[in-house]
């Protein structure tokens, strides 16, 4: 946030790589966390219980997207391995968890890691070609993975639950108490989102994360300084897919139903949009991107419902809204790539740097 680092000297490596270099950072994090914990209460107080339920449900979507975007950013932003199959790994997690929860009646604290691990396993298999191929070839291979996984789920009734390829799942229960309302789900999701954020922050400053970054910057040089490229690329794929799987499970619990239609290639592109708009190779960027991309269609819908009738008839509007959303996403991806490749994260850093020495910037 807006604070100055003057008078603070890092004298050890541990201090240099610390997550909270300054005492004030700890306070900021504490205040933010308190704000997030109180968020449902505040929104209820401000807007009444009914609309607060809606606002909290939007925040829940953001929290789910944060986990998925972090996963994709580990792979694309930190390791430099492009993937267009992120949504397919989500569907692997979602169907694994849904089947375990329905057929075996397992609770979420078993199905959630199981979904993640299954996705990680499949992700690692998809990652195997990444040793030999990169760039374009990898993009196409992951695209193939997306289509093949979609097809397999759709054509295997044992996985997809037969009709409509969807499985209804029971609500998650915490200590015997089922989470029914959005507010209760909010705390459930917040816990995992925070876990994912802290996990990623720690991952990227560890040996593994540094190896990822080295591979991204120059893979041959990384190999020469002793990084086992194959192992670390597979690890990156596995970790990224684990996050994707968990995202899929969380989304399934959020909707109460596992359905492959939520994990099509368009979803993969949504997540790519998140990390590009937010900023490749940055944790804060993933969060900002997830917020932006989740809110954008909602804003378009609100805008179109209030002003769209001036231009389109009501029946057209149903086609116009998703079309505008897709077009706008594409446009934003290109604009950010051309104008601001480091995304919202960079914009935020610019703002912060400006105010850091404000008003004496010379």
């Amino acid at each position, binding site marked *: 946030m807006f604070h100055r680092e003057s008078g603070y000297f890092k004298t050890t490596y541990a201090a240099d790589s610390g997550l909270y270099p300054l005492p004030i950072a700890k306070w900021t994090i504490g205040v933010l966390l308190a704000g997030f914990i109180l968020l449902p209460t505040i929104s209820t107080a401000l807007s009444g219980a009914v609309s607060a339920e809606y606002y909290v449900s939007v925040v829940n979507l953001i929290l789910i997207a944060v986990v998925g975007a972090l996963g994709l950013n580990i792979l694309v932003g930190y390791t430099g391995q492009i993937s267009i199959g992120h949504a397919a790994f989500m569907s692997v997690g979602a169907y694994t968890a849904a089947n375990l929860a329905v057929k075996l009646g397992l609770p979420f604290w078993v199905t959630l890691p199981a979904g993640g691990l299954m996705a990680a396993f499949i992700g690692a298999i998809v990652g195997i070609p990444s040793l030999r191929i990169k760039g374009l070839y990898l993009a196409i291979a992951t695209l193939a993975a997306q*289509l093949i996984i979609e097809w397999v789920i759709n054509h295997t009734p044992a996985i997809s639950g037969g009709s409509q390829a969807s499985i209804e799942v029971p609500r998650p229960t915490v200590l015997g108490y089922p989470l029914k309302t959005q507010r209760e789900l909010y705390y459930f999701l917040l816990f995992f989102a925070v876990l994912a954020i802290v996990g990623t922050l720690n991952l990227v400053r560890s040996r593994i994360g540094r190896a990822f970054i080295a591979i991204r910057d120059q893979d041959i040089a990384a190999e020469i300084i002793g990084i086992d490229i194959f192992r670390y690329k597979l690890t990156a794929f596995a970790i990224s897919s684990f996050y994707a799987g968990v995202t899929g499970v969380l989304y399934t619990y959020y909707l109460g139903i596992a359905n492959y239609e939520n994990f099509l290639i368009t979803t993969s592109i949504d997540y790519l949009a998140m990390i590009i708009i937010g900023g490749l190779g940055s944790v804060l960027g993933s969060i900002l991107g997830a917020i932006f991309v989740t809110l954008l269609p909602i804003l378009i819908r609100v805008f179109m419902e209030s002003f769209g009738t001036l231009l389109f008839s009501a029946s057209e509007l149903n086609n116009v809204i998703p079309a505008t959303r897709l077009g706008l996403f594409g446009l934003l991806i290109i604009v950010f790539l051309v104008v601001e*490749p480091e995304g919202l994260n960079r914009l935020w850093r610019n703002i912060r740097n400006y105010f850091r020495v404000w008003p004496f910037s010379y």
Partner: protein
Amino acid sequence: MELDFTLLLIGNGVLIGLMYSLIALGFVVVYKATDAINFAQGEFVMLAALMSAAVTVLMELPFWVGVLVSLLGMISFSFGLERVVLRPLLGRPIVAVIMATIGLAAILRGLGPLFFGAETRSITLPVGDEPIILGPFMLQPVQVTGAAVALLFLGGFTWFFLKSRMGVAMRAVADNQQVAMAMGINVERYFALAWAMAGIVSALGGVVWGAMLGVDVHVSLVGLKVFPVVILGGLDSIIGAVVGGLIVGIVENLAAGYLDPLVGGGTKDFAPYVLMIIALMIRPYGIFGKRKIERV
């Protein structure tokens, strides 16, 4: 009977395969000359089909005007695209170009129906629709036309790259941009030219595919078949695009004929990708592709 059925499937596969080659050609030309990867090739085709359908159906102009409009439209579109989007990305990592064309695909798929309407329209080629029966083969005139156009372009492009001055210059650009520049070749102009050629191919591809499938946003799904075609054939080889197209066309038709009854449909879209994964594992640079050696 069994043999006839197989021959019928193979015959249709060859025609469809050549039509895939036509689209793959646009991808290959751009990759060959500029090293850029066009993930929006299917959307290019869709845009061309939408344009020509808009001219022939909405404005009720003759078919050839539609073709002409989509040709001119696609050429100017791809020129503009190269200028506005791809030139600023020169020298940036390959991932950036891939993402940009994915974004472009999203724009076209979103805005295409917004401007041209979401309903399915039809383009009628002036060739009739009675299937031509030739021994065991039963050929759709639309597909025959598509295959003929594809062959025409394949021949034309081969001549262009081997014999014409511009084609040789373009190969030089593809081979080594800096040396080409030192030899007095205006590299940027050839980049624009390569994109314009992709535009031409997409325009004709859009007309024939639009005539076959009906024109709406789903035409862009043809683009998904481009990847197996170019990976199998080799990314930078024109003859590779033909061979890859034929392989994909035949394999998907055989899969649809023999595997669909066993697993309940959908293998047509699935089989080429399985083939492609195998190709990526064994020979990622394709049958005719140039093997790249990387140096630090």
